């Protein structure tokens, strides 16, 4: 497979660089522009292709209607009663006074809904819609009120009388594993669960990635390095808070929801209310961002139940404070103990690691994310023996789950710093170490999958080469790099393509557009197949009644799966068009092509007929209509026989390889890091939509920068979030955005998405924090082993040598012992 590097930077990054310069001019009238060596071009280049996404105009002009904007006759308003404490028994719960307040239409608690336990993907069924007897985190829903006005709903919530008996919050993941620890779920042995998991005590799940005998290899290795890295919890912070409106008509309910996964929301709503799925419709209006925070069943069930009880449409919109504490999708806090055996020349011989994931009060989808974390700690490196375990541990914090590239940024930040430490240990520079150890085409992965293409090396070289161009480093300036990989997620997905009577096209899909443009770009794929223009296609999407199933905007899967479905459907429509054209032109189908809105004989420009004309003909007969539901590609061949807790990610399908190189200016007196330049190099298989891919890179990098140095949730000893507001949970703004360049490498995947493409939504956020961490060490000589690497933490590392990882390295052994004691017998190995 030939690699074809594309420098999108030449085409589009001048616009980004120019935008950066313009921003500086506004704010600093007298400041010389020194951070950017590119001059803004006189005329900004036109985007390629010249195409505006279908939802672009509405969103940019403020005309787009989001879930909270939708109007309904007789709409009532919902408010949730949240626990407000991390761990407590509910002694009594009395809604009598609240029910008597003016305007209150309905109040629900767990007594008013079916007693039904559920859990994401069926991993651990540990959750009920409302709290039953116990609250396990501050955002747990105790009751819900519907009233005529939002103020009356708030008054209703305030009037609900709850007596709590506080219990000590369980907040330390290591302590939670020790025998005798108080339990977040005392009745865990009675919960249903996935057969690949064995939840017990405070352990929701355990997964391992094992190849060969790592312990023996490490024991025999000339050099062994062991380190601990600790990452704090973080939040996805979409600009639109969760919003749900439920509207019943007879025994059917339509739920307008800000969800990334309409079909999952539908199934779960039907499940918890014990009604058939076909009586539930989930529709997403426009989504104001998700980043994984809206990637599950959230409040659809609560609101649907309230609307049924109130006999009116009911709307719930979370406040920003509630948005921080109530949804069960935050980025995991994590403790990583990693140990690598090295040869004297720097070749990696073996890796052993233990990852503790804080899954919070409910397992959510954390168990499978543990597998992903383990694969990330192995990384795209040649490691003959691997033994990595990931433990998903219950605490009384906000439940964690699949936020954009779940576990990726934290794991990459830990292991890529570890790789720089290893490099220094054998006297290699970070680039040389990676040249020695990154996988090549044909090398074996951590579960023996065969790697395809040389993307790991190509992206390393491209990023390193580019970051070294430009001005020499000044005082306080340094460069850091980090490499990594991420998967694409094969899954079922369907789409219809139709050509209307006037020759225009329509794509009908159940896919969800969370802002990435993945759904908006589907017309490009259909247009390429049919010789039409993308703007000739309208899209019906994110409505479970109209479109076929799709997994939702998660796991970088939309283009990967739904794109293939659209292409399949378009190819069938092409076949139908060519058959009609063969009759119209009295030619053989084999001699015909679709181009510029026409079907024509190849090589004879006068012998053609327009698609519009063919459509008119078809409209009186067989119609032009087709379906696609591309069979998901198989997982690559691999050997996971020694792995436990197998939930599907014991291999990475069509992995994307990447390397980020960053340039920072660190102020040692304050610990403040300004990132001035980020070069991303990513092997995406095939670039389908250049502006879209660049958008994912720049947005992902900015999100990663926030996670790297600014964000991080602070918990009090009482288990409550201390910075649950946008003033104190600090996101990066454009004022701090660096110059970003994106380089794309194309090694089309044999078992990939459309045209060999690979997932592009999540990779951009994975390695940036790691690259910044390595740059910090290059600038200061000290290493920060706590994420986020806030100014205070960097300052503390410089002035006292405290790296922030708090505790000394813990041995790996006790986790096995603790597991055995919890399980009651043996090692619990399946």
């Amino acid at each position, binding site marked *: 497979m030939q690699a074809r590097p594309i420098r999108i930077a030449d085409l589009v990054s001048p616009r980004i660089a120019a935008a950066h310069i313009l921003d500086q001019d506004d704010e*600093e009238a007298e*400041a010389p522009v020194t951070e950017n060596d590119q001059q803004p071009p006189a005329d900004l280049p036109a985007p390629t292709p010249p195409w505006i996404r279908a939802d672009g105009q509405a969103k940019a002009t403020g005309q787009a209607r989001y879930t909270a904007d939708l109007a309904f006759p007789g709409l009532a308003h919902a408010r949730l009663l949240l626990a407000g404490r991390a761990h407590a028994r509910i002694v009594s719960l009395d809604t009598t006074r609240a029910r008597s307040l003016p305007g209150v239409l309905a109040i629900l608690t767990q007594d008013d809904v079916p007693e039904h336990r559920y859990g994401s993907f069926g991993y651990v069924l540990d959750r009920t819609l409302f709290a039953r007897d116990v609250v396990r985190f501050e955002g747990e829903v105790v009751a819900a009120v519907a009233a005529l006005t939002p103020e009356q709903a708030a008054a209703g919530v305030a009037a609900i009388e709850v007596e709590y008996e506080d219990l000590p919050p369980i907040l330390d993941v290591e302590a939670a594993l020790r025998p005798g620890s108080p339990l977040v779920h005392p009745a865990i042995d009675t919960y249903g669960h996935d057969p690949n998991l064995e939840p017990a005590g405070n352990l929701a799940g355990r997964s391992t990635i094992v190849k060969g005998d790592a312990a023996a290899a490490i024991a025999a290795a000339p050099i062994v390095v062991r380190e601990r890295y600790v990452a704090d919890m973080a939040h996805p912070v979409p600009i639109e808070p969760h919003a749900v409106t439920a509207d019943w008509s007879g025994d059917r309910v339509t739920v307008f929801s800000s969800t990334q996964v309409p079909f999952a929301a539908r199934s779960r709503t039907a499940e918890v209310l014990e009604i058939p799925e076909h009586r539930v419709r989930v529709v997403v209006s426009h989504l104001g961002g998700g980043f994984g925070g809206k990637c599950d069943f959230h409040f659809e069930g609560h609101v649907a139940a309230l609307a049924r009880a109130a006999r009116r449409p009911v709307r719930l919109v979370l406040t920003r404070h509630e948005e921080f504490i109530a949804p069960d999708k935050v980025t995991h806090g994590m403790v990583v103990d990693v140990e690598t055996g090295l040869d004297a020349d720097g070749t990696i011989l073996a890796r052993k690691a233990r990852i503790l994931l804080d899954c919070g009060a409910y397992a959510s989808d954390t168990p499978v994310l543990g597998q992903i974390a383990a694969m990330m700690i192995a990384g795209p490196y040649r490691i003959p023996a691997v033994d990595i375990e990931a433990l998903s541990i219950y605490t009384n914090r906000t439940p964690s789950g699949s936020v954009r590239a779940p576990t990726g940024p934290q794991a990459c930040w830990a292991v890529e710093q570890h790789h720089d430490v290893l490099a220094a240990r054998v006297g290699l520079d970070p680039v040389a170490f990676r040249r020695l150890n990154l996988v090549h085409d044909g090398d074996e992965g951590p579960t023996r999958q065969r790697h395809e293409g040389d993307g790991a090396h190509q992206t390393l070289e491209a990023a390193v080469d580019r970051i070294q161009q430009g001005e020499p480093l000044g005082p306080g300036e340094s460069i850091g790099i980090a490499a990594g990989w991420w998967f694409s997620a094969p899954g079922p997905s369907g789409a219809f393509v139709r050509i209307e009577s006037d020759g225009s096209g329509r794509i009908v899909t159940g896919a969800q557009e969370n802002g990435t443009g993945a759904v908006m770009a589907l017309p490009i794929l259909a247009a390429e197949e049919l010789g039409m223009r993308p703007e000739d296609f309208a899209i019906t999407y994110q409505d479970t009644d109209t479109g076929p199933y799709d997994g939702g905007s998660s796991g970088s899967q939309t283009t990967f799966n739904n794109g293939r479905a659209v292409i399949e459907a378009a190819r069938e429509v092409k076949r139908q068009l060519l058959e009609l054209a063969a009759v119209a032109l009295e030619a053989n189908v084999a001699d015909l092509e679709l181009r510029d809105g026409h079907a024509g004989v190849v090589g004879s420009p006068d012998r053609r007929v327009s698609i519009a004309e063919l459509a008119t003909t078809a409209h009186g007969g067989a119609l032009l209509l087709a379906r696609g539901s591309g069979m998901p590609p198989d997982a690559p061949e691999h050997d996971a026989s020694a792995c436990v807790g197998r939930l599907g990610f014991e291999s990475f399908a069509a992995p994307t390889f990447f390397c980020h190189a960053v340039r920072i200016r660190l102020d040692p007196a*304050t610990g403040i890091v300004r990132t001035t330049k980020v070069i991303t190099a990513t092997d995406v298989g095939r670039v389908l939509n250049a502006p879209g891919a660049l958008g994912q890179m720049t947005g992902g990098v900015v999100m990663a920068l926030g996670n790297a140095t600014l964000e991080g949730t602070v918990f009090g000893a009482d288990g409550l979030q201390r910075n649950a507001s946008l003033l104190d949970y600090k996101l990066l*703004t454009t004022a701090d955005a660096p110059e970003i360049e994106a380089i794309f490498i194309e090694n089309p995947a044999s078992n990939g998405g459309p045209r060999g493409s690979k997932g592009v939504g999540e990779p951009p956020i994975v390695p940036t924090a790691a690259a910044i961490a390595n740059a910090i060490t290059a600038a200061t000589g000290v290493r920060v082993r706590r994420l986020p690497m806030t100014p205070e933490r960097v300052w503390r590392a410089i*002035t006292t040598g405290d790296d922030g990882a708090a505790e000394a390295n813990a041995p790996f052994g006790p986790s096995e012992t603790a597991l055995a004691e919890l399980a009651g017998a043996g090692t619990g190995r399946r």
Partner: protein
Amino acid sequence: MTDRFIAPTTIEDALAILARDKAARPVAGGTDLVVASRQGRKPLPESIVAIHRIAELGQHAVNDGSLVVGALTSHAWLAGSAEVRRHWTALADAAAIVGSPATRATGTIGGNLMNASPAAETTAPLVVLGANVMLRAIGRGSRIVPVANLAVGPGRTSAAADELLTTVIVPLPPAASGSAYIRLEYRRAMEIAIVGAAVLVTLAADSSIASARIALTAVGPTIVRAPDAEAVLAGGAADPATFRAAGAAAAATARPIDDVRASADYRGAMLAVVVTRTIAAAVARARGDAIPIPASRWAHGQEA
């Protein structure tokens, strides 16, 4: 719940409402009032006197060298005015970094002062520049209060309930002076000072420091002066060692708090760094060197 809202067009009308309606509170841009209410920290007043239509409050002029600005003067205007940038540079440094461009277009100097936040950006510069405010009330005419005496605690001022802040008067600093304001900021927009310092220095004929005024942001219930640090500078050489000694003196007497944004340790250490750098910026400007506005951006990586 707010059930009374009036938007008068003259100062007299506004004063009359404040005098007769005990619950009436003035609002200009609303950038503090509305945000605090949305967050549930402070409900909107029962009675609102919106002063944004009072043209006289939006005027600004330089009279006999003093800068005279109405209460409605926006941060954006202060940050962009050539006169303010040249002669009252610390004030421009501060106004340029309040919130975001949207905040600066809407927020006013009068509102900033009356909100009396210990972390307000513009207050410390006004203190070192010796600024005064004019307060007016019906039947009592007007009185002049130094900015340093206006705030008495977080969110509380010495103004009476029926008084309206109408004008801010900032005298022209002496010749051979320079001023600067620097805050420690984790990000460059939508930020609030972790710690901040404003400095006005005047150089003597031999280039030593004739006098200095230093005021500190976010290390006390109100903006405070730093007399020990000022004493280190007065009569001293205008060199980095002196600046550092003054910074250390300022940190030695401060009692910063521990909060979610920073530990007391870090705040204290950063106070010394910020004061040192602010003095260096003010001295450079006194010498005629150009330090870009806002000085907080320039400060990153400077000698500490």
